[in-house]
């Protein structure tokens, strides 16, 4: 008893609301007021274990255990479940006997969880006890969570309201631009036709003004439509497409304008650029088209060059760089930052040139590039031309890449080409019919008209036409229904049907193609675009004159694949030896026809999940292609057939990817045939 000075229990109780003292026999000899309040039975001086169950320390059966746990936290719960204490042991003396005192307070956390109805008071905790502070903390934390929940709910509600308003606005914009495009269709077409009439200088000047103004108005409307489309970005899906073909289509559309201004229009493809890419083809096409049109517009002499190169990346992921370079006036460095802002034009304020446009194209370009995950910039000096470039991340969908190549559109394109054949033009709008017919006739094509779906179907089935231009919105039944009825009798190969619609949406296009149509054109009819589309399906009069019936009129595509990748000449030579040169053309034509039929069957089988049909046609096609030396596509098909047989998963988009290789393979075959 000499090694410590006893502490009066009263002092202890001032510092600790819970004080429980027990002697060497583990009998409780003293308890503080708070303990008496909640556990009156301590008055009878019971054994500690008659009142409490001990959680910590791990063992507290003897006085010695307590002496060994002086530095530990003690947690005890009353056996009746109505009270709990937490504290620490202290050695003291009571009536000259050595005792141990548990000094602490009610175990608030345990009690609030296990006996919340027992109401503790502030006076059950000494001033220095931090447990109530914890309680306050817990309360505030709960409140902060509530704050967050409330704010989140408010934000969600606001967001939902905004999204709804935004949707309504988007629909309104889309509808308005659609409504504006339809009458503008008439204006643009009429002006286009007037331009070919004989006019005096004053009239031509006024017509030029009307033409550029209506072009600008069309550009603004398209801008609004494009923005609406971008709002639908989340609904767009990437597709697999033929990159060189897409680039060539840019040349096709812009070639005539370049020719008009005597500009050289060149496409350069660097080696390693993948042939078959995955991405948003329509945005890429629109971006390049805008940049190219701009370049042509602001270049008076020299050239416009579109170039695609591979920047970096390991297959299949890679980064491509597209650039459009012109030899135009260039852009002053102070203007470079502003050039991508809406309504910026190359003309200084107050000197509004009729051909300067609305300044909306580059804004769309920038938005498109950013949407596609790329970045864009320009390099330009006044007087030295400009290069607009952007990079574009993509995934190569086949191992085929293009070899270095340069296509000079102005050397090979002939915008004066006349087409021939007979077209059925179906539209319920009389103005559209008159203007459309005039434009079609100006291309050298005979045209008949139908005023509604019924007339269109009757004409298409009873008379011979080389193509139908089908309006989508007609009063009795729409163009899709008309197409469905025609397709019951005439397949896509027999009678091509091209949609003609004011709705410039990718979805609309998908709907048309999915509905059995072969192509898609938007109103107003642009002569060059119409010619490009018709050129895919109708023979050109030049071709007829030359008396050459080509399997593929797309001569631009030459060299975009290396034939050696696609074609095994040994197999072909062996075939030639066996059947003789004279029979080669006939046999290969039959092979091509058979392949075409099998391909159609394959696509149909795939569309209705006919696995056996898919497998059968894949097998036949593989065999057909390999027999004439088209080993690349044949091997691909064989590999797919193997996977189908074993139930292994075939990669998504295999059919689309294969379609491109198949087409290129047939072209390669045709080229080989031409050499013989």
């Amino acid at each position, binding site marked *: 008893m000499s090694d410590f000075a006893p502490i009066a229990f009263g002092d202890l109780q001032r510092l600790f609301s819970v004080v429980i003292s027990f002697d060497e026999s583990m009998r409780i000899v003293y308890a503080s007021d708070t303990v008496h309040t909640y556990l009156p039975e301590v008055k009878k001086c019971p054994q500690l274990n008659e009142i409490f169950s001990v959680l910590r320390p791990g063992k507290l059966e003897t006085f010695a255990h307590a002496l060994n746990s002086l530095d530990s936290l003690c947690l005890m719960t009353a056996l009746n479940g109505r009270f709990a204490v937490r504290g620490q042991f202290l050695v003291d003396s009571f009536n000259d006997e050595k005792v141990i005192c548990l000094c602490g307070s009610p175990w608030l956390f345990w009690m609030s969880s296990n006996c919340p109805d027992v109401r503790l*008071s502030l006076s059950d905790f000494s*001033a220095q006890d931090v447990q109530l502070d914890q309680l306050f903390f817990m*309360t505030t934390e709960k*409140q902060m969570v509530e704050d967050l929940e409330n*704010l989140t709910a*408010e934000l969600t509600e606001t967001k939902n309201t905004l999204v709804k308003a935004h949707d309504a606005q988007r629909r309104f914009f889309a509808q308005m631009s659609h409504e504006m495009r339809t009458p503008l269709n008439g204006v643009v077409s009429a002006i286009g036709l007037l331009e070919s009439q004989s006019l005096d200088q004053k009239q031509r000047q006024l017509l030029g003004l009307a033409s550029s103004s209506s072009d600008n108005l069309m550009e603004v409307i398209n801008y609004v439509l494009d923005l609406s489309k971008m709002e639908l970005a989340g609904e767009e899906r990437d597709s697999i497409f033929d990159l060189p073909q897409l680039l060539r289509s840019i040349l096709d559309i812009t070639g005539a304008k370049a020719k008009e201004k005597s500009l050289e229009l060149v496409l350069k493809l660097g080696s390693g650029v993948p042939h078959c890419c995955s991405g948003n083809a329509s945005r890429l096409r629109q971006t390049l088209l805008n940049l190219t049109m701009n370049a042509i517009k602001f270049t008076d002499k020299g050239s416009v060059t579109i170039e695609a190169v591979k920047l970096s990346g390991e297959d299949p992921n890679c980064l491509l760089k597209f650039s459009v370079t012109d030899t135009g006036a260039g852009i002053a460095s102070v203007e470079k930052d502003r050039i991508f802002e809406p309504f910026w034009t190359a003309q200084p304020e107050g000197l509004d040139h009729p051909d300067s446009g609305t300044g909306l194209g580059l804004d769309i370009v920038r938005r498109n590039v950013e949407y596609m995950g790329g970045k864009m910039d320009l390099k330009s000096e006044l007087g030295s031309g400009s290069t607009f470039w952007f990079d574009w991340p993509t995934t190569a969908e086949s191992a085929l890449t293009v070899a270095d190549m340069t296509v000079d559109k102005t050397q090979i394109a002939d915008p004066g080409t006349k087409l021939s054949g007979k077209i059925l033009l179906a539209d319920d709008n009389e103005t559209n019919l008159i203007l459309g017919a005039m434009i079609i006739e100006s291309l050298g094509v005979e045209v008949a008209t139908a005023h509604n779906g019924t007339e269109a179907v009757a004409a298409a089935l009873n008379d011979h036409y080389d193509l139908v231009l089908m309006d989508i919105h007609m009063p009795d039944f729409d163009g899709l229904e008309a197409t469905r009825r025609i397709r019951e009798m005439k397949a896509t190969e027999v009678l091509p049907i091209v949609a003609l619609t004011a709705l410039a949406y990718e979805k609309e296009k998908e709907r048309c193609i999915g509905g059995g149509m072969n192509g898609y054109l938007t109103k107003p009819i642009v002569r060059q675009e119409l010619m490009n589309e018709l050129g895919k399906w109708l023979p050109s009069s030049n071709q007829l004159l030359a008396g050459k019936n080509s399997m593929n009129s797309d001569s631009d595509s030459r060299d975009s694949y290396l034939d050696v990748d696609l074609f095994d000449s040994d197999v072909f030579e062996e075939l030639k030896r066996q059947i003789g040169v004279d029979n080669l053309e006939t046999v290969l034509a039959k092979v091509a026809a058979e392949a075409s039929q099998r391909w159609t069957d394959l696509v149909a089988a795939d569309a209705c999940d006919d696995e056996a049909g898919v497998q059968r046609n894949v097998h036949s096609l593989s065999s057909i292609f390999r027999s004439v030396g088209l080993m690349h596509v044949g091997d691909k098909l064989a590999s797919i057939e193997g996977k189908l047989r074993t139930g292994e998963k075939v990669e998504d988009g295999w059919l689309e990817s294969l379609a491109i290789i198949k087409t290129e393979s047939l072209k390669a075959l045709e080229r080989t045939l031409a050499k013989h």
Partner: protein
Amino acid sequence: MYGVINNSLKEMIYEKFGEDKWQQVLSVSGVPDDSFLSMRSYDDALTYRLANAASEVLGAPVDACLEMFGEYWVLETATKSYGMLMDAAGNDMLEFLSNMNNLHDRITSTFLNYVPPEFFVESTNNTHKIHYVSQRKGLISFVVGLLKGLAARFGHDLIILDQCDLDVDKGTHTVFQVELVPK
């Protein structure tokens, strides 16, 4: 003052007078935020602006608004948000007031910018002198509401027999002589 006070004022106006009135109060006050974080300390001036705006919009004296708010704070906000602490603070009004300083001490140790008021009670028979000491000015009516709300919490009506503002260098020292009448 902490955001919880401003939120409570907002809730009271919402509940008693509707959302439009709250939007008017907000607009008149010029306070930019419509939401307050409960545990963030805001400038006192913001709370005063809201109270004055409420008085203007509701067409009632600012003292009446503050008193209503004091009652609302005790009976609604504190009961809902600090239920356990309120329960622990006492079983009758006088015990509650005597524990109030203890409670405020604890909050001060956790929330370092917290400037709490102090309450002292002198009792003689049925009348009590409640001292309210604060470093703030202009909240006496709010305290009247608090005291009435507390009395109601413990089943009494509070009758203020006398109210005396003592002369102090800074803030407020007011003595309320009150009587508690069982309801």
